[in-house]
Structure formats: C-alpha cells, structure tokens
C-alpha cells in the first residue's frame, strides 16, 4: 500500500545523501566502517521516508545510541530528527493494560477450567506459543518492546513493507551501478 515509487524515491534520495554525509565512498574506510555507514544511511533514510511510526522512531533511537552517528543523523534528518527521536509516549500505558490483560487471561482460564477441562491445555499452550513468538517479533521490530499485541502487529506489517522497499531500492541501486560499471 505504501510501496509507491515516490516512497522509494524519497528513500533513495535520503540514502544517497547519507552516503555523502557519512563519506561512505572514501577510500580510507575499512570495510566495517563503510558498511556501518551505509547501514546508518539506509536505516535513517527508510525511517525518514516512512514518517512517524513507532518502529521508525525506535530505529532512530537505536541508531542514535551511538554517539558518532548522532551528528550524521542530525544533519541528515534535519528537523525530522527530533520528531523521530521522540520515543513513543505510551510506555506508561502499556504496563497497565498488561495488568488488565493478565487479569482477563486469568479469569478466562479460570472460567475455562470450571467449564471444560480438555480445552485448558490447548488454549494455554496456544497462548504460550503465541507469546513466545510475539517476544521474538518484538526483538526483531525496532522499538517493538514497548508495544502491545495489536500495535505490534501493525508495526510489523509496516516495518515489513518498508524493509521490502529498502531491499528493492538497494538492489536496484546495485544493478544500476553495476551496469554503469560495465558501460565504462
């Protein structure tokens, strides 16, 4: 839905700007440094292109933890940096809702225990499985720890689409650069 070409263009532009800013194409960098620089640019660019979502904010926050990156990020993102850097303001809300959810779960399981014995195992097992996977997902999605069930799924969806766009653009970039090399 968001994988429009304009979105990809924005991303590309920002990424290239990031390359310039971080001086990724210089000879002096080692492999690692260059790689990190590119990664930084790419991530920042995709977060910028996407706008203000939870995962993009989380991403920028993670990237900013490294002091060296901060300046680059600032100059790259400009105004957006502050917006994106702002952590999601719902962190207080989450624990409370978790309590309620837990209470509901307990009630549910109690009710189920009273009623149908054979369903207990299934539901509890299913819940445990789902929980585990949700935890894994939380680690994957940047900024995912502070999200609850629904929004996590939302953000995952968003994030997955942006990743797809990122991969597309980068591959195309590679293709064109390779082609240009051939021409030369």
């Amino acid at each position, binding site marked *: 839905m968001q994988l429009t070409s304009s979105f990809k263009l924005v991303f590309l532009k920002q990424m290239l700007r990031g*390359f310039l800013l971080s001086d*990724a*194409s*210089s*000879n002096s*960098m080692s*492999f*690692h440094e*260059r*790689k990190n620089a*590119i*990664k930084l640019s*790419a991530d920042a660019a995709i977060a910028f292109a996407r706008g203000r979502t939870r995962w993009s904010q989380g991403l920028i926050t993670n990237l900013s933890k490294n002091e060296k990156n901060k300046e680059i990020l600032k100059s790259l993102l400009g105004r957006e940096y502050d917006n994106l850097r702002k952590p999601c303001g719902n962190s207080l809300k989450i624990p409370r809702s978790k309590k*309620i*959810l837990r*209470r*509901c779960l307990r*009630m*549910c399981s109690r*009710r189920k225990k009273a009623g149908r014995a054979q*369903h207990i195992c299934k539901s509890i097992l*299913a819940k445990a*499985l*789902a929980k585990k*996977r*949700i935890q*894994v*997902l939380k680690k*994957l*999605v940047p900024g995912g720890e502070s999200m609850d*069930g*629904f929004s996590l*799924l*939302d953000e*995952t*969806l968003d*994030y*997955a*689409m942006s*990743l*797809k766009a*990122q*991969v*597309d653009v*980068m*591959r*195309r*970039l*590679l*293709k064109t*650069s*390779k082609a240009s*090399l051939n021409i030369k």
Partner: protein
Amino acid sequence: MRGQKKTRRGEKDKLERARFVRKHSRAKAAFLTEAGRLKVGEYLERASSLSGFWVGALEWGKRSEVEDKVIILFLFLGQSKDKSFTVAVSEDPLPRLETSIDMNENKFVLNSHHDGGEWQFNTPAMSMVPLLPNAPSLAGGLMNQITRSSYLSTPMVEVFSPGQWNHHPTSSPNMALGESNFASTSSINSIPVGKPVAISPRGMLVSTEPRIFPTSLPHFPVDSAFVERAARFSCFGSGNFSGINFFGSSPAMAPSNNEGIGDQVQKDELLQVDHESFNGSTMKNQGDQNSQIGNGESRVVIFPEDGLEGNTGSTDAALNSSSSDRGVNKRRKTVPDIERDPVQGGRQSSSETTKENIENKQKVEQINSKQTEKNGKDNSEFVKEGYVHVRARRGQATNSHSLAERVRREKISERMKYLQELVPGCSKVTGKAVMLDEIINYVQSLQRQVEVSIMFLSMKLAAVNPQLDFGIEGLLAKNLLRAHGSSSSATGFSPEMIYPQAYPSQHNLVHTGISAMASHSDTFRRAISTQSTASGYKESPLQVQPMHIPWNEELITQMAYGANPSNPQNMDSKADDFAI
C-alpha cells in the same frame, strides 16, 4: 402419469400449506383453496380493506396439455403515494418476474429478468379482475418468454423499494422463465422474498428445454420453513408496517436456522449465485428505506432473501469498519441496529437474535476462524446499550472484561489477516502461532536481505576495486556468520557448507565466503555453478584463482538481477547457521 402424481403431491402440499397459512395468517394473506383458484377480484376486495398490503395469488390459466396450474403469486407492496406497486411474482421453481404496477398509468408492467422486457397490460392495477381474461394472454406472453429462455434458475422473488420499482436491476443472472417453470405453488405469501421458493411443483410443465437447476436448488428441505416464513410474512398487523422489517426476512430465518447451517450454506450459495451484485444496492437502499418505514406510510421494503447474505455482508462491513475504529466508546452501530430502530414488536427480538446468529456465524466465519468454539449453543444476547454495540456472541458472557477481550481478539485477527496478505505464501495458514512464525521468518529474511544489499553496496562504494585478499574474505564470512548467528532458525547445514572443509585452507575462506553468500539466495548457487561445475565446489584449487577475481562482479550481477522477494522462503529453509 408423472404429471398427475406431481399434481397430487403438489395439491397435498398446497393443502398443508394452505392450512398452515390459514392457521397463522391474520387474514391478510389470501390463500389458495384446495382447488387452487381464487378469483383475483375477491382477493383484491379482501385485501383492499386491509391497510394496503395485499397478497394475492393469481392463477393463470391452465396449461392445456398438462394439468398444471400456473400460479403466480403477487405481493403487493404497500401503497406508495404514487401508487406504484411492485408485484413480486414467484414461480416455482424458478425465476422471478417482477411486475410493477404503476397505478398512475394503470399499467401492469411485468418485468422479467430474462431480457428485461416488459409486458404491459393495460389493466388498471386496482382491479385485477380484468387480468383474468388477460391471463391467458399473459400466460401466453410469459410462455413465449419462456420458450425463449434457455435456462432456469432459482425463483427469487424480489421486491424493491419504491425507488426501484419500475426498474429492476438486472443484476441477477436468473432470469429465464423456463417453460416448465410454471409449476404451481401453493402458498402464497411465499414471498419469502427472494428466498428460493422451493415448493414442490405441483406439476411440471412439459419442458422440452434443458433445465439447468442450480445444484443446490431442488427441493430444499425448506418447504416447511418456507411455509412458516411465508406465514410470517403474511402476518402483518394491519397498519403496523413499521413492524414489518423484511430485512433479510429475518423472522423467516428462525426456522431455517433450525435446519442447520448446511441449509443455510446452501441458501447462501444460492443467494450468492443470484444476488451477489445485488447486495450492495439493496443494502444501501435498505438503509434508506428503513428510515422511511416508520412514516406510517405503509411502505414495506422487502429485500431479497439474500438479505441474509447481504445483511451479514453489510454488518460485516460495518463491523469491520467499526472495529478498525479504535474509539474509546467502542461504538458500533451496525446495520441491524439501524434497522432495528423502526422495528417494533416482540417478534423482532427473536428475529434479531436469529439474525444475529446468522450474522455472528458469518462474522465468525469471515473474521475469526479461530474462535469457532465460542459459537456453540443457544441464542446470543446482544448488548443493546446506547453506545456500546459490541455484540456478544453465543455462549459468551457480556461483562466488560470479556467484551474488551473479544474486541482485542478481533483486532488481532483482523491484523493477522492483513499480514497474511502481505507475507507471501501465508494464505492457507491459520492459527496465531503459525502465522506469527511465518511473519517472523519473513521479517528476518527481509532483514538479512537488507544486510546483504548493504554489504554489496559497501563493496561497490569502495573506490578501490576489491583485491580480495583473504582478510576481506574472512571479514565477509565472519560478518555473514554474525548476521546469521542471531537468527533463530537453524535447519542444519546445507551441503555446500560441507565442501569448503575439503579444500586447501588457503581457499577455504574464499569458498566459505562464497558459500556464505550463496546461502542467501539461489542465484548465488546458480552463479557459482555457472562458473564451475554443478556442485560449485568440486573444482580443482587451480580454478579457484581465476574464479577468484571476477566473482565479485559476477556475483553481484547475478544477485542483483536474480534475487527476488520470493526468495525469503528459500532463504529460511536453507541453513542459516554454518560454521567454518
């Protein structure tokens, strides 16, 4: 012989139905006597005394060849100001005729879906008696129509709101009046509008044409239900049309529900077959019409029975839209709510519950396939508060906690649906855990792809044409290892991983690096294999050297051109963890 038998049976059925209807109807409906004949004029007189709602049955002439009676049932919908009526004609087993009686013009327009043609009979609508003499001609006309028709279809009687009355949307494919279709139907009311009139034909006309019955049509075990429905339809309190909410002919659904979901599904299919395109328009009209119902205008809007379908469809739409609205109030005014407003009468509550059952069933089927255990038992109770219209499903408590939980679950399932569409190859997967698994895999694979792209980009950006000494190779390999090490799935070693160990150590890293890359996509393997033997690794060490130099660009090319988003699945299935 056959005709006679059927006649007898049909008569018996008719008799039963007539009796039934007689028992239940409140004299609004005229029903056929055993002989099956009623003068239309009689009807009209009787009916005109009532508040404008007539059910008349008109019997066309007899077919001379066979003793079939063609009975066409009319439902005169209330009286609109402009005195146009829609007469719904149902024939068993087939197709509908809509007739619209335009009182102003004193024309009786018979629309058959078949070709949208109209026969116009210049008879004053109010007195149908003249029709009788015309009946043969009408019948003749119809029969002509029939002969032209090529197929039969379900009898659906549709009555439209006045706005639609003179125009029947030929949305339904069921048109043709088969010649054989003028089987007699006994009970009147039969206007379980839109419900397939599955009355056993009293006699089948001689049909020489091929009949195409919808597979689910013949002889629904619906007859009794149909009759009940018909009866209920006919039980309109005089003047209290606001109480008539034909929407989905929901009162009629209760008996049909008892027949089980199988029938319902059958009907649904049928309905879908016939009215899929129709739902939208009717639903919209419904909203409009229902608001007008309470006017005291005896305008009754009957929607086709796939109002069952449409109802649920619309409610689902409403629910979906509302569930996506995460307002604090959880305010959901579903379509049944809208239509419930003008509804009065105690019967409606049962109809609503049955409607809800159906809706809930549909909702469950559509939205929440995982929660089928919740829909077991008796009727649901629905929350009829002012603001919160979250509907409790069957067998569930309605306290706020469980409601909230249900909302939450529905949200989650909705999102899972979206994600299912996004993640390739997930359409068949149901169940939260497995879906989450797939999603996790997908996201991981995407992240890895990004990593690889970044790697290649970095190599591209390196101004120096990479002289791949082993240091870099090692670095590459280690990078990839690190990247993979964090992944959770470990499906074992791919065969390529084993090969490097067979090689001289100096080339080991190269191969490992290559193989590391290779694990990312099939194109790598292809690239390698194109440059060497199929295994890619069995080449002699001598050949490694020439391969060594161009591999960078070739591989990049291959990867750039070849890799596609469908690879994630492959990537996940291959080994992610490998050791040097």
